């Protein structure tokens, strides 16, 4: 079911976003949290898989805006934290119930066959109507830990025990795998990657 958004609602949302961004721009260090960021993002409003439905096995890379790939460079072995967010809507034209989102790191440029690390959770349920917001956080370090928030955000427990990432330039992407017959309207996805210092 769709609903026409009133102009005043659009203005309210845009205003809130602007206020948050202005607050960030005015405070380069906020709560002990330096904001050294590049603006990167996944292509918004994409359908995953781009054609057809999930097959229960294949992981599909989320398409990235080509001008905004999510890259980071480490000069030495370094522990990192990431926060991975997604807003999606699950449909099931061919059956199925759940879709799972993972966040993966590959040496840059992105190569899905050479993912060096991946963790996942964010179990999205077709039984939840409309768009679902969820988040997965992860620390790659001496004893990696992870967690999730959001409706039904169970961990996938696919992580491996990995110490600090070696020096190098990496790219982060989100990926989706779903039960046979499911399909996703992927509204937007975002990842923050953080390291010690500032």
């Amino acid at each position, binding site marked *: 079911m769709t609903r026409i958004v009133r102009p005043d609602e659009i203005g309210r*949302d845009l205003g809130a976003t602007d206020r948050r961004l202005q607050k960030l721009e005015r405070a380069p260090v906020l709560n002990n949290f330096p904001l050294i960021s590049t603006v990167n*993002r996944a292509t918004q409003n994409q359908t995953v898989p781009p054609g057809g439905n999930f097959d229960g096995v294949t992981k599909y890379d989320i398409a990235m805006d080509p001008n905004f790939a999510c890259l980071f460079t480490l000069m030495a072995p370094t522990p990192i934290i990431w926060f991975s967010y997604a807003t999606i809507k699950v449909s099931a034209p061919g059956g199925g119930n759940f879709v799972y989102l993972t966040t993966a790191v590959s040496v840059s440029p992105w190569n899905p066959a050479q993912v060096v690390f991946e963790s996942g959770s964010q179990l999205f349920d077709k039984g939840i109507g409309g768009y679902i917001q969820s988040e997965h*956080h992860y*620390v790659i370090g001496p004893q990696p830990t992870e967690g999730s928030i959001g409706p039904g955000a169970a961990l996938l427990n696919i992580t491996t025990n990995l110490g600090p990432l070696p020096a190098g330039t990496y790219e982060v992407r989100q990926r989706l795998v779903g039960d046979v017959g499911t399909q996703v309207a992927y509204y937007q996805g*975002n*990842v923050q990657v953080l*390291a010690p*210092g500032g």
Partner: protein
Amino acid sequence: MTEDKKSFVDRKDADRIARRDLPDFVAGAMLRAPFPVSAERQTQMVEDLLPTIVEAVVDGSWPLSANGRLTFRLIGTTAPSVPEPKRN
């Protein structure tokens, strides 16, 4: 960077420092989240992150700043550019 950094912080102090600094860090990070994250969930996130951060402080791979605080550097991010959709 973590090279040649050795910690002289014991586990008890590392735990105290992480419990002091992580809540503000998570709150700051969540200002960039594409959707609101409740205080309750932020507390849950702190608890999730705590064990690894404590270990990293103890083994020196997450060095403290000169004033003894835990610091974080945002090295990569994606960014929302449109408002989140309304739930049906």
